[in-house]
């Protein structure tokens, strides 16, 4: 059964075989330990008070009633943060607990740790926050408008990325067919089965230990340490079995809040978001508006493309700037186009934060470039699959960033595979009689 690997001149013994997953049994038998399955003596339950209002100044927080409640062990607000009240993977523009103002409905304003989940929930409801409402920006156009209210001091433009390859004017001059449209993608959630969750405590050596559902314990450690004012080697983040993430646990989710509560109470604290809190406070897939124009010659060759990408990154950066950048860079699709001009803008709005999600901007780009390809194919009278084969990237050709590809370019191979399936399948072939 062993196949020959030509490059290595010896058979594979394990790689390339569909061996059973090492985590399969634990998962199907319910033995896998997710962070919500962990519990410790004296454990407290954490709960976060969310802003519930998209853009406002915080005028006053009154937590006296919550603090006086039986079973409430601590209530924390921004002023209780021991380190630097800022975090963010790439841009530290987010507050562990809101300071001065809130920028979206999910902004955390206060934390409670209590003896039971019910008490924590009830305590949160007694915290009174007086807000001074600010105008709300709900889309990138408003964010870009002159005189728009600034969501962050530095303004609403997070990142502008440019692609300039060849000469688009000249390229469109050669085009026999030009297709232009605007594509608007919507917001979706990762909707993993396991919501954001974790548990943490201070150990006997004074280390902060956190188990959580995450995508990178090291990146979480870095951000937790800063907010807690601890050195990174005193912060231990462990990934508990994680029930899906898809990019949604790439940014910090519960880790900093758990750290703050465990530090403040000296007791183990569990924090699990329910679905509604996950929906309203955690990151999403970007809504991106893509205007794009493509030109092709009568022989089927693409000659120019131009695009403008507006990404609604929401209230904080997260990884959003990179998502929108990646969208713009991939907007020309897996095709060789000699002349390209793309501008991508990642913008702050008062919507829920948009950050990493499986596909990372390319899911949106593909909707635009594949629609454009079909519309061009239709106007040129070429079968859509063949039209893609004509233009597919290959060894020796360059991407939108002018990167010449030297090896491993599989787009033609995947297209040929699809073609083979269609040609061997009479019912599929009947749709595309022009496929040969």
């Amino acid at each position: 059964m062993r196949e020959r690997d030509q490059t290595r001149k010896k058979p594979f013994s394990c790689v390339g075989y569909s061996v059973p997953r090492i985590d399969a049994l634990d998962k199907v038998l319910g033995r896998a330990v997710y962070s919500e399955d962990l519990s410790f003596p004296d454990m407290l339950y954490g709960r976060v008070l969310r802003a519930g209002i998209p853009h406002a100044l915080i005028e006053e927080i009154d937590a006296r009633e919550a603090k006086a409640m039986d079973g409430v062990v601590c209530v924390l607000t921004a002023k209780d943060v021991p380190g630097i009240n800022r975090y963010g993977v790439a841009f530290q523009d987010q507050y562990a607990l809101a300071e001065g103002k809130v920028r979206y409905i999910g902004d955390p304003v206060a934390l409670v740790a209590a003896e039971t989940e019910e008490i924590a929930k009830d305590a949160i409801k007694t915290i009174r926050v007086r807000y001074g409402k600010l105008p709300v920006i709900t889309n990138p156009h408003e964010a870009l408008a002159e005189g728009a209210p600034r969501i962050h001091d530095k303004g609403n433009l997070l990142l502008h990325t440019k692609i300039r390859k060849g000469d688009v004017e000249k390229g469109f001059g050669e085009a026999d067919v030009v297709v232009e449209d605007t594509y608007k993608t919507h917001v979706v959630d990762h909707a993993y089965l396991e919501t954001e969750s974790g548990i943490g405590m201070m150990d006997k050596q004074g280390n902060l230990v956190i188990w959580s559902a995450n995508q990178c314990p090291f990146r979480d450690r870095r951000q937790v340490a800063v907010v807690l004012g601890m050195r990174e080697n005193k912060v231990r983040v462990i990934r508990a079995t994680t029930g899906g993430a898809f990019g949604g646990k790439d940014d910090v989710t519960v880790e900093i809040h758990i750290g703050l509560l465990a530090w403040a109470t000296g007791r183990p604290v569990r924090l699990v978001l329910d679905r509604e809190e996950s929906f309203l406070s955690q990151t999403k897939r970007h809504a991106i508006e893509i205007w794009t124009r493509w030109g092709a010659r009568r022989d089927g060759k693409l000659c120019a493309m131009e695009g403008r990408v507006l990404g609604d990154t929401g209230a904080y950066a997260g990884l959003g700037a990179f998502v929108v950048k990646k969208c713009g860079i991939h907007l020309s699709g897996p095709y060789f186009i000699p002349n390209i001009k793309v501008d991508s803008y990642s913008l702050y709005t008062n919507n829920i934060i948009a950050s990493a999600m499986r596909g990372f901007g390319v899911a949106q780009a593909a909707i635009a470039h594949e629609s454009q390809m079909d519309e061009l194919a239709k106007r040129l009278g070429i079968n859509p699959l063949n039209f893609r084969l004509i233009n597919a990237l290959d060894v020796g050709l360059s991407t939108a960033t002018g990167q010449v590809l030297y090896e491993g370019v599989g787009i033609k191979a995947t297209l040929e595979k699809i073609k083979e399936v269609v040609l061997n399948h009479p019912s599929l072939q009947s749709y595309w009689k022009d496929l040969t």
Partner: protein
Amino acid sequence: MKKRGIGIGCMYYGMGYGFSRPDVSAAEVEICEDGSIIVRSGEVDYGQGSDTIFCQMVAEELGIRYDTIQLITADTFATPNAGPTSASRLTYVTGNAMVKASRAIKKTLQSVAEEILGERDLLFLDEEIFSESHPERRISFRQLAKEGHLRGLPMVETAWHDITTKDVNPETGQGDAYSTYAYAAQLAEVAVDTETGEVEVLRIVAAADVGKAINPSNVEGQIEGGVAMGLGYALTEEIKEEGGYLKTRNLGEYMIPTSMDVPPIDPHIVEVPVSSGPYGAKGVGEPALIPTAPAILNAIANAIGVRVTELPANLENLHRLIREKERD
């Protein structure tokens, strides 16, 4: 009336972070005195199956069983940093670190085995090391590990793999943005009910170029999961916000496709290897999802001649487009 159509969706995807963002991964392989193996890495398997394929890679290099490896992951006190599980990078980046660490320790073991067996053409297979030309000259992996320890040789190796690229020109965006790219194409067949705007996806044919499938059924699993997610993205899933407030509050309102909605998926693994990947491998996590929505949208256009430019292609949006077309 139900109308049918097919459509294609393609993509390419830059592996990892690119653009000079640090993109590194570490792995550590330790051989115990009895020849059992501990692998430590900060890598995170949140369901995609990386734990299994890394064990396969170490097992491949050392000629041992993959399922006896003690794999310790994602603990900042116990494992070296492998970077995040994102950008479809783990197979490609951490996989290389796994192979490198395994090969480093294998090199040590090889030298011990050469000394003991007096042969150089050694194979590591099925927990044994033997000469290809004189197969009777062999030593068990367990015994070899013991010999290594007795000689005081390094029986733990850490490897670091870095795919960080140079940045591109900020004014033109020109330069080598990514270390390598993955490619995928999918075909969707749909039936559109022109009376209600309902779309039924009848079939997805998915081809993904993964360079080398370390675990084919795992790759197929990724493709199938990606297709289901892409189907929801195209048709039913939507978080609605209004004036900064959230309108979609639970999974009763947020429509993830059920098993009844996901059609038969026909996954095809395409292997165009890349020399910078372990065994030629690239990632598949995101390439599995990206082509699905465009393929469905193109199939809808093929079926009813209507181009959806505003997502999702849900009942109301699609039916509005159908009505507009009828009016024209």
